[in-house]
């Protein structure tokens, strides 16, 4: 991991081990006016792939005051189809222009034809797809000349042909490609609940040293014939169970930059900010915890 960072170019504004927020266009002006105490911001680069216009100007303005992370949704690492070179080129241009401290992508796929689903579909966990994903991560890292983080997905179904546990596949993909991990604790909770997997086994398999970022978000619950399916819609506050998992995780394994994602039913900035402050307090306590252990 250390080697991967040093060989993949320089990072000009590191994202600190603090709480950050997903940047939404509805909040641009409040952030510029109020300069809230937020550790960093994260955006989907696909929302900044226009030729010009206000989004890029706002991002430039906010980037002056805050470290930035680019969280891509468009690479489709798990598609059998080749990566879209045009998309990669645009991603590279944004990386060069905004010099983000972190760049990440999902462990999923989104196109089976030339058209694009705009949803993140789960992978079949086999050696074949593992090799495919590793090759695609290599290509992305090669193009961007830097390490990326890969995020564990949330999912609602599993494929019969899967023969590797998701957490094993996830960690192995990072190890083989030299990528880091973006650990989405809400996704761990959602997927484990939806598939009856063990949360302890899942989190136990994730080496803390590879985790470069943590995601937290809200989800909703849909009833299917008496069974609850958790839907990862990023449309509410983080639920108490996920906060608890998060606190245990950072107390035991150490802190990492932590993002609050809120992408639907977007609230006033103040409400998002409240969630960010919760995460910040937990991060601070975890650091004190570790200091106590050391002393």
């Amino acid at each position, binding site marked *: 991991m250390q080697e991967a960072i040093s060989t993949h170019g320089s990072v000009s504004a590191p994202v600190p081990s603090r709480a950050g927020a997903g940047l939404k266009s509805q909040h641009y002006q409040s952030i510029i006016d109020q300069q809230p105490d937020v550790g960093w911001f994260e955006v989907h680069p696909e929302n900044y792939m226009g*030729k*010009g*216009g206000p989004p890029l100007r706002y991002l430039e303005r906010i980037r002056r005051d805050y470290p930035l992370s680019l969280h891509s949704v468009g690479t489709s690492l798990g598609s*059998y189809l080749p990566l879209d070179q045009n998309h990669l080129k645009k991603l590279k241009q944004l990386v060069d222009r905004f010099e983000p401290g972190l760049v990440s992508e999902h462990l999923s796929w989104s*196109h089976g034809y030339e058209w694009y689903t705009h949803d993140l579909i789960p992978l*079949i966990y086999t050696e074949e797809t593992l090799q495919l994903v590793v090759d695609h991560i290599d290509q992305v890292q090669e193009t961007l000349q830097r390490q990326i983080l890969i995020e564990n997905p949330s999912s609602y179904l599993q*494929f*019969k042909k899967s023969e590797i546990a998701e957490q094993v596949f996830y960690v192995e993909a990072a190890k083989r490609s030299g990528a880091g991990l973006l650990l989405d604790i809400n996704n761990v909770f959602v997927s484990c609940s939806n598939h009856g997997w063990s949360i302890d086994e899942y989190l136990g398999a994730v080496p803390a040293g590879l985790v470069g970022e943590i995601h937290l978000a809200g989800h909703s619950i*849909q009833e299917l014939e008496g*069974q609850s399916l958790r839907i990862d819609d990023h449309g509410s506050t983080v639920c108490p169970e996920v906060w608890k998992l998060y606190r245990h995780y950072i107390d035991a394994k150490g802190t990492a930059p932590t993002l609050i994602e809120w992408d639907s039913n977007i609230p006033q900035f103040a409400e998002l900010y409240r969630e960010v402050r919760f995460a910040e307090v937990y991060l601070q306590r975890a650091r004190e915890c570790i200091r106590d252990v050391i002393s």
Partner: protein
Amino acid sequence: MSLADLQRSFCDALRSPNAPPDALLDELLEDGLALQRFNVYRNNFIVLNGDALAEMYPVIKRLIGDSAFRILATAYVREYPPMERALLVYGKDFPNFLASIPELSELHYLQDVARLEYAWTVAYHAEDVDRLEEHQITELPAEKFELLRLRPHPSMCLLHSEYPVYRIWEANQSEDPEEVISLDDGPSHVVIIRPGTRVETREASIGAFTLFQRLGSGETIGDAYNAAIQIEPAFNLELFFSQHLFDGTFCSL
């Protein structure tokens, strides 16, 4: 099924109005809910992309109502799934799609309002360029002025409609438009442009509209002006330039 076949079959089923084929369901881990689990993805595909379309076409949605819009959006997403990785300008074919719906094909103004809305979002994300500055013109010998080829801002879109679409669009910028607009209120010539950070939608005279068209296709100011006064003899170039020469409508030389 190979990985490629499985991914294609999954995508076919996302897009289809029919239930997924057994061959695909056989690939899913069955716990009695496999079909419902798959349908979460099918629903997401329609809703996520339909929401992007609704963001692009808020006035159309207001004019035809939420439920009709949702039905049309579902059909549109299935027929024209997104080709781009970014959803910034999803819905390019929606105006023509509206024209292809038998129940709406007589409502020609809807397609034109949709074109206006599409142009608005394209302008919002258009390239940023330096604007024409006063000194660039004052430094020029006066006799050279009419030989200039001024380039309109790359965000500019010119839209002509037989209907008063500008007024329809403008009245529907608020939740409860009170204005009554007759479709017989005549044609409109609309200019959509984003010279700075705000998209401006303006109604133009036919002379100004023609001037923009001609300048946009690379003609000199002199030739473009001649075309404008032929179609609108009272067109006043001096007044026009006093408003628009240096307001960002034109690019730096």
